């Protein structure tokens, strides 16, 4: 193994209310591929952002090629030879491949951009990487896989000594991944160090030399890939103590009626043949890693995105859900993970948001009965303990937890029996979190049924009666809470070695 090229030591970083990185160490060697693993929110991306100057660290040192460095921005990091290949492709679709590669540092001939030279340089670069892409091709005509190759080529063209891959395979097909691995092996021979962030256990085994595991913003340890098993890695990823008492057994009687049954739901790559049942009074947890297809499943079920096939039964009756209107009429309410974009209408008042889904009940002929609207909104503000001066307050002025309560009020006003909570406590502080949990427990006690999508293991184990685990668009398992352990869930959530 090569010499150490990059050392991060005792890196500490806090955001308001979150200790994102707690004295994290990282060591990268020349010519190796280092896997960086951890659950959602473990701090992998934050650490990489600190390295490349997107975030400023609170304390700790970064030593690169024997010198202590602190990059002010990605440009500086790039110039020094540290480059990130992002998961989302940052390509300009209308420009050609070569124009994309050299954007911001175009070759010039006088005041004219020298496209010919750019094409030549791009061609040389591709030849070096053994990739077959025409530099003159328009970027949007390339497959996602080829676009990813361009991203890598671009990174290499910066004379990169350290390349960071942030979930590079998320959008790629098997053969494209294989092609990418070929390039990575080539780069290894050229003594370039690489950090590979991925959730895919099989890829980690195939391409990486060492694995560094992070958990909840701390460094857990580093293993030699060859000498460890998947179980070793998972144990390191989840080996936390759960403070809030997890549920030990389901609160739902065995014979509770099935209120929602989904069969063979298909919607693109992210939802493949998903089937599950939801019982009355149950909280059904949906667990999985980022990109597992949980939100996509919920959106397809709710009619927010088109679905290709699949049957949905409500209380035993088959229903057709083609758009959110149908879903709402079936008694389903969806609380989005992205409240600001999908949940609330920010420039409207608490009262207006509360009645948004059930306007019919608030009409006096053609006029809106504003008194009744206020009355109902007031009722829910009190029942849910929403902190707002009055119901005429614009929701944009409320805190995250209170905005969430307004969304809950909206669906309660509609009298929805099935509520889909997508990351119910994202962006909500700890105190408000507990309130939301209590509220959810109260709702199921009152006979509502809840689907809860959550990326937080503690939340899943604390709230769910049953757990569905998804991985890459497929349902990989279903567990009763009594048999659910962090390790079992994580095992199902990561792809098996094939």
């Amino acid at each position, binding site marked *: 193994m090569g010499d150490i090229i990059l050392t991060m030591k005792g890196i500490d970083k806090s955001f308001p209310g979150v200790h994102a990185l707690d004295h994290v160490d990282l060591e990268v060697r020349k010519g190796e591929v280092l896997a960086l693993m951890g659950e959602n929110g473990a701090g992998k991306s934050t650490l990489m952002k600190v390295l490349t100057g997107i975030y400023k660290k609170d304390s700790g040192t970064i030593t690169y090629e024997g010198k202590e460095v602190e990059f002010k921005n990605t440009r500086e990091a790039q110039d020094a030879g540290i480059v990130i290949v992002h998961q989302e492709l940052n390509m300009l679709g209308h420009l050609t491949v070569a124009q994309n590669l050299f954007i911001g540092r175009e070759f010039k001939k006088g005041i004219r951009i020298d496209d010919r030279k750019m094409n030549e340089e791009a061609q040389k670069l591709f030849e070096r990487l053994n990739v077959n892409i025409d530099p003159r091709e328009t970027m949007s005509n390339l497959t996602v896989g080829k676009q990813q190759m361009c991203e890598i080529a671009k990174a290499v063209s910066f004379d990169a000594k350290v390349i960071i891959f942030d979930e590079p395979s998320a959008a790629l097909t098997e053969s494209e991944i294989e092609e990418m691995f070929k390039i990575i092996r080539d780069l290894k021979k050229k003594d370039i160090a690489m950090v590979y962030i991925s959730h895919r256990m099989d890829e980690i085994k195939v391409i990486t030399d060492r694995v560094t595991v992070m958990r909840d913003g701390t460094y857990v340890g580093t293993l030699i890939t060859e000498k460890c098993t998947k179980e070793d890695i998972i144990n390191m990823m989840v080996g936390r103590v759960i403070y809030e008492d997890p549920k030990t057994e389901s609160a739902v009687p065995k014979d509770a009626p099935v209120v929602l049954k989904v069969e063979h739901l298909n919607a693109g790559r992210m939802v493949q043949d998903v089937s599950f049942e939801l019982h009355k009074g149950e909280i059904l947890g949906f667990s999985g890693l980022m990109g597992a297809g949980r939100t996509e499943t919920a959106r397809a079920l709710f009619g*927010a995105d088109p679905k290709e096939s699949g049957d949905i039964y409500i209380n035993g009756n088959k229903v057709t859900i083609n758009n*959110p209107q149908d879903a*709402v009429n079936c008694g389903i309410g*969806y609380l*989005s993970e992205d409240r600001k*974009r999908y949940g609330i*209408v920010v420039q409207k008042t608490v009262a*207006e948001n509360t009645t*948004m889904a059930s*306007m019919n009940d608030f009409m006096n002929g053609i006029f809106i009965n504003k008194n009744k609207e206020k009355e109902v909104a007031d009722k829910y503000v009190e029942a849910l303990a929403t902190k707002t001066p009055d119901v005429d307050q614009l929701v944009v002025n409320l805190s995250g937890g209170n905005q969430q309560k307004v969304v809950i009020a909206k669906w309660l006003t509609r009298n929805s029996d099935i509520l889909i909570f997508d990351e119910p406590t994202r962006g909500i502080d700890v105190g408000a979190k507990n309130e939301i949990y209590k509220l959810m427990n109260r709702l199921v006690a009152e006979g509502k049924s809840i689907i809860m999508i959550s990326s937080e293991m503690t939340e899943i184990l604390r709230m769910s009666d049953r757990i569905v685990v998804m991985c890459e668009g497929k349902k990989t398992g279903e567990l009763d809470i009594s048999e659910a352990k962090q390790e079992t869930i994580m095992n199902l959530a990561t792809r098996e070695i094939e």
Partner: protein
Amino acid sequence: MANKKAFGKLKGREAMVLGIVIAMVVLFSILSPTFRSYPTFVSVLDNSYYITLMALGVTFPLITGGVDLSIGTGLVSYALIGGYLVVHKGVPIGVGILVCILVGLLIGVFNGVLVAVMDLPPFLATLCTCMITRGLGPALCSSMGVSWPSALSEQGAFRKIFKFTSASGTVIPIGIVFMIVLVVIMSFVLDHTRVGRYILAIGSNKEATRLAGVNVKFYHMMAYMISGLFAGMAGVAYAATYATIYPGSGAGFELDAIGGAIVGGVSASGGVGTILGTFLGVFVICLMKVGLPFIGLQANWQQIFTGIVLIAAVLVDVVKKKK
């Protein structure tokens, strides 16, 4: 007075625009003695009706975050078609007026389908209907100009509902009364009906509104229908005020209306706006149109000042947002 209640309810922006209107009247009156006369007052109002009607209508697409550029050439086209039927085909005046309004509504539906159902960008869709309506009137009416019947004739009696001349010769601009009635009605529509509520919601967050189970396409389309309907009514008002309709004119009228709405506080990015604000905003535009010549500035300056006022109006919003 009914006004008093409305006064108490004035929001910051509306009060500000009202202040600007008053300040402009005072300024022009001081600078030009001829401005503060009854005929000028009537003239300002006379020139405002068709703009007011367009503005009341276009407020709805604007609030959804879109725009309707077809109303200017549209209203001329509708007035041309209605007038042609009355003058050359001997159709009763009432039918002519109705046709004028209905064609407007029809174009509104067309715009609505393009934008809400077929997902065309509003700017592009209505730019196209702007061109279509520009040619539509002349095409249907053999490219002739039309003069609606004189106010003194029986057929032209409808024009008195905008400007009534009493037996003693006093001119009473009662059109303003109709405008106020319409402002009250449309305020109600915007603030107290489902149509208004959902149009505001669409402009504020279309996706969240859709996910609340609202038939977003229908209500989005309604906004353009209202705009078309009011463009049709503006066609009638235009005919009543100016009588002679020239084919192919009307381009740029919509800018006065949209400008008025924006000055009145309708957010160009959607979600925010009031009918009263639009109404007051139109007066800022109209006063400049009529008033600036009185203080010795040519009509061209009106365009320049309108542009500057618009920039100021939008800047106020931008600065507010940043806070």
